[in-house]
């Protein structure tokens, strides 16, 4: 996967971000969602079977978050810090390489 054009920004935010609650839950740092995880309320999670994947990237294109990245071999990688468990990826996948499973903590 190509390097993010926002790498410098992301690194700056990662350095400056503090999870400390502010009065009024004000967000003082633009871009803090790169460290401020948003996938905490998922019920189902996508389970990925690499053997079935044909690298068509439909999941990658359709993920509304986007919580799917591509690894060095261009296989999808699911970022569970942002995945909302909507199931769109599983629905789109032509080879059933993705199945939604109930998440237990």
């Amino acid at each position, binding site marked *: 996967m190509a390097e993010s054009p926002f790498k410098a920004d992301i690194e700056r935010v990662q350095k400056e971000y503090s999870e400390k609650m502010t009065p*009024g*839950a004000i967000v003082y740092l633009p871009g803090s969602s790169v460290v401020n995880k948003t996938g905490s309320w998922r019920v189902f999670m996508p389970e990925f079977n690499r053997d079935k994947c044909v690298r068509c990237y439909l999941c990658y294109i359709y993920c509304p978050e986007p919580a799917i990245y591509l690894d060095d071999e261009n296989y999808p990688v699911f970022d569970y810090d942002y995945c909302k468990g909507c199931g769109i990826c599983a629905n789109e996948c032509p080879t059933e390489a993705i199945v939604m499973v109930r998440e237990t903590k």
Partner: protein
Amino acid sequence: MPIRKVMKANEAAAWAAKLAKPKVIAAFPITPSTLVPEKISEFVADGELDAEFIKVESEHSAISACVGASAAGVRTFTATASQGLALMHEILFIAAGMRLPIVIAVGNRALSAPINIWNDWQDTISERDTGWLQFYAENNQEALDLILIAFKVAEDERVLLPAMVGFDAFILTHTVEPVEIPDQELVDEFLGEYMPKHAYLDPAKPITQGALGFPAHYMEARYGVWEANENAKKVIDEVFAEFEKKFGRKYQKIEEYRTEDADIIFVTMGSLAGTLKEYVDMLREKGVKVGAAKITVYRPFPTEEVRELAKKTKVLALLEKNVTFSVGGALFQDFSRALVNESEKPKIVDFILGLGGRDVTFKDLDEALAIAQKALTGEEFEEVNWIGLRKEIL
């Protein structure tokens, strides 16, 4: 030198706003508090108050405009009552959650139906869970003073919560009394300019306010409002002390009147406290050992002070102009909670009275006293009593 003028509580509230120098006032007229923004609009039009006066089309918009202005970093004020406050309900949570120190003057009025413009406390009492601080004025002077105090407490960095100051519809809003208007310089010294460090508009330093709070952060944000309410208890004591030093008028979260060796202490809020003091004087002359207590600060709830008060008496008789259905009044809940784990506690008797502007007379208080005396002597008594109810038309 402070000047004394004869005025209604509505005018006193407008004067308080003028003295506090808010930068934005957004308001919608509603009986009985219409005169507050009317008077302020005159101050603005006459150049006596340098502020933006925003005319809006509803109370929902009034408080929304205040939230916007306060989030941009300026002192903000509005006034409303009853259905108007109810219409603000949704935004009241937002103001508290965003920790914006807006102040609202409320002419305490009943809620519909039936339509009723007269006094009780159901409007503000119904907003007790929004996170807002709540002060209740006994007279017009208190209406003015408590608004200044509310600004100071609300803007304290340990608090940063919005505040409402209630004064009884018509009994205060439309009744003239002499009110001392403090010196502007003294008020300036007392309040200072509002310089927010947390919420303000600066294009060079952009921030996001009122963002989505995921489950991972929401509880902590709500706890922030809880903690700020707790902090406010100490801050209010400090501000009361400073106010007394500067202006000579003493305030307490719970003001006691002739509670020494009292067997029964009547507790109330707002203008009813005035009637109650007269009543206590009359009973004391007859040798009946009763006292009175007035709740000036209702939120944060003065739990510690209630516990101290409870130690002084055998019966607490709560006189309240509001209803929490199937429970009694809101004060009954609050007092019960404050005393639930105390090893020794007085009996608590709840009285609902004066709803929708019905006069509370000495005859009503006699009725309450008779029931409180039953509790005192160990006879059976009703926990919740509707006083002055016209049973013959039921």
